[in-house]
């Protein structure tokens, strides 16, 4: 390989690269500002005095998942509907909970977004870092616990939805065995399993709950296999804390019943569907946007909304659920809304026999956030528990 040959070749390559870059850079000049690219038509920037507030969302899954991300995107659409041309929203989906998240969120801030929502726990540290570098941008982090001067956290009381589903499950099960397809053993999921069981025990003190962990949030084939296993083990009503409709579909195929989760999943299993415990992010998102628009937004602090604020609901209850159960569900919902009903009120014993909450004591939010035991009636041990 002669030096001359090498040099001439590299020169050609370098020239080619420069030419390509020049071509692209030329094309760049014709662009004004990068447009927000939400598939739902964003409002055209009207010639109003203040520029529309730019809001961005980082999603961990695909918008079409029919579950967690779908619910968040519905919340985004609610903002657009409420505020019209005062806002411009955009989103990036499938942002992994890894080092890449920081780049995406930083890019959102650099693009002029002033209110950024990170919709999964794993964005916590990346958001904190970007928040530290962008004092003029407001950061909202879902399901996390770290806050800052311009960052705060929010969550929904999904366990209330789980409890309401449990009320129905207890009544509808004939084998007295319930099955839960669970994702990752974090307090939120354990709380949901427990609340589901507590609700079921109100209608039917004899129920037991079996749990299978898939170690992921969204994995339809695994969710399906886990559901089959639970059904094979005798469960005839299934509940899930995972993000796809696979569990419901499996129940439908095998003639059992199941619940929808995060969003209304009736269409995925019309015969099997008992009800869907849905999250409605709209109310909170509208509140946050309003505060950002009128200047009252404050960093720090955590917001944890449930049935009372309209963030959690149980919908599309099947026709064959007996009227008295439907009435009970409505009654509990009203109680949760006006504060007269408490789900986590003692005496509550764990499944080793130890009393975790004393009689007539109501567990506070701090206790609920760190939940690490199964209530009586749930079989097995929490994976990784000491």
């Amino acid at each position, binding site marked *: 390989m002669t030096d001359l040959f090498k040099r001439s070749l590299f020169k050609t390559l370098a020239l080619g690269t420069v030419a390509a870059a020049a071509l692209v850079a030329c094309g760049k000049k014709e662009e004004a500002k990068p447009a927000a690219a939400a598939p739902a038509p964003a409002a055209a920037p009207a010639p109003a005095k203040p520029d529309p507030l730019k809001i961005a969302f980082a999603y961990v899954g*695909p918008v079409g998942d*029919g579950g967690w991300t779908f619910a968040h995107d519905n919340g985004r659409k609610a903002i657009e509907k409420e505020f019209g041309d005062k806002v411009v929203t955009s989103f990036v989906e499938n942002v992994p909970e890894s080092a890449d998240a920081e780049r995406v969120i930083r890019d959102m801030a650099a693009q002029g977004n002033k209110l950024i929502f990170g919709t999964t726990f794993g964005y916590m540290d990346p958001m904190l870092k970007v928040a530290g570098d962008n004092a003029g941008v407001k950061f909202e982090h879902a399901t996390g616990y770290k806050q800052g001067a311009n960052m705060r956290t929010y969550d929904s009381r999904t366990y209330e939805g789980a409890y309401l589903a449990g009320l129905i499950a207890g009544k509808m099960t004939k084998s007295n065995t319930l099955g839960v397809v669970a994702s990752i053993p974090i307090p939120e999921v354990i709380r949901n399993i427990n609340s589901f069981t507590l609700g079921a025990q109100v209608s039917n003190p004899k129920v037991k709950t079996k749990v*299978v962990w898939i170690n992921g949030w969204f994995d339809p084939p695994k969710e399906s*296999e886990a559901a089959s*296993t639970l059904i*094979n*083990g005798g469960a005839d009503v299934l509940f899930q804390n995972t993000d796809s*409709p696979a569990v419901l*579909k499996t129940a439908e195929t095998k003639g059992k019943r199941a619940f929808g989760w995060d969003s209304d999943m009736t269409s995925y299993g019309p015969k099997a569907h008992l009800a869907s415990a849905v999250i409605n992010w709209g109310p909170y998102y509208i509140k946050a946007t309003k505060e950002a628009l009128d200047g009252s937004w404050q960093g720090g602090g955590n917001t944890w909304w449930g049935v009372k604020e309209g963030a959690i609901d149980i919908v599309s209850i099947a026709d064959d659920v007996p009227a008295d159960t439907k009435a009970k569900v409505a009654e509990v919902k009203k109680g949760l809304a006006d504060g007269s009903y408490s789900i986590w009120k003692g005496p509550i014993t764990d499944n080793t026999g130890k009393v975790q909450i004393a009689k007539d004591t109501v567990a506070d939010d701090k206790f609920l956030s760190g939940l690490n035991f199964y209530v009586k009636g749930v079989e097995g*041990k929490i994976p990784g528990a000491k």
Partner: protein
Amino acid sequence: METYALLIASTLSAGTVLAIASLGLLINEKVGVLNLGAEGMMLCSALAGFAAVVATGNDWLGFAMGMLVGALLAGVFGILVIWLNTNQYATGLALTLFGAGISAFAGTAYVKETLAPRVQFALPWLGDLPWFGPALFRQHPLVYLTVAMAVGLALWLYRTRWGLVLRCVGENPASAHALGYRVRLIRLAAVMVGGALCGLAGAYLSVVYTPLWVEGMVAGKGWIALALTTFATWRPARVLLGAYLFGGVTMLQFHFQSTGVELPSQVLSMLPYLATILVLALISRNPQWIRINMPASLGKPFHPGG
């Protein structure tokens, strides 16, 4: 007892995906071509099959589309590998990566689609037998077809003239060429049939097994199918056995969880993969055995005329 009958039923279903793909890969490897693109082919066919059923409501059309897509992708692979003599491993990997990307890309519209409720099958009379009925005879027709395919393939490979030709091309392509057989065309045909079967496996996955589409849903089954052909020392009947074994291990990890076996769930999740490694090690350790069973020209490019 009932639980075990149902566990066997789930195993048969889970193993069928692996079996169909592995039989296809066996045909490939028997003729001397190693197609590492199984995962990519299965993903694309899963999407194609699902999309076809969403559009027409006909499952069998879905299977056909899956097979078509699998055959097409395998055809592209085949032309690169057989005529342009590109490196088989790298080309197969490229197919996997490309297949994963294009299926995720084209499939974004289908993530929220759903299929009509799946029909529950049961063989008349046999399906009603106590215990054996639910265990063995209430499966989707493809499960039985797979068994038939394995038997049929074994008969074809070892009892017919063209089966012999295929094996000859795999063992010694130069001799086959000297005898006047169009080695490259035969290889291409085998690769495309193999691709069609991988496609069928993918379509079965998205249309019957988990009637949903989500990107990456094959989740490594293509790789396990590849391992299975080695595990089965390239014999169809053993492929079936291995497939059911692995299907069983997959279902067993969830079964153990729900019956409260005291092992961390991650250890249970590792079981199928550890089992594969163990089996590979045991099977391969006798070089004589491997040499007798493995097609001699596997992975090597063929140049007619030297």
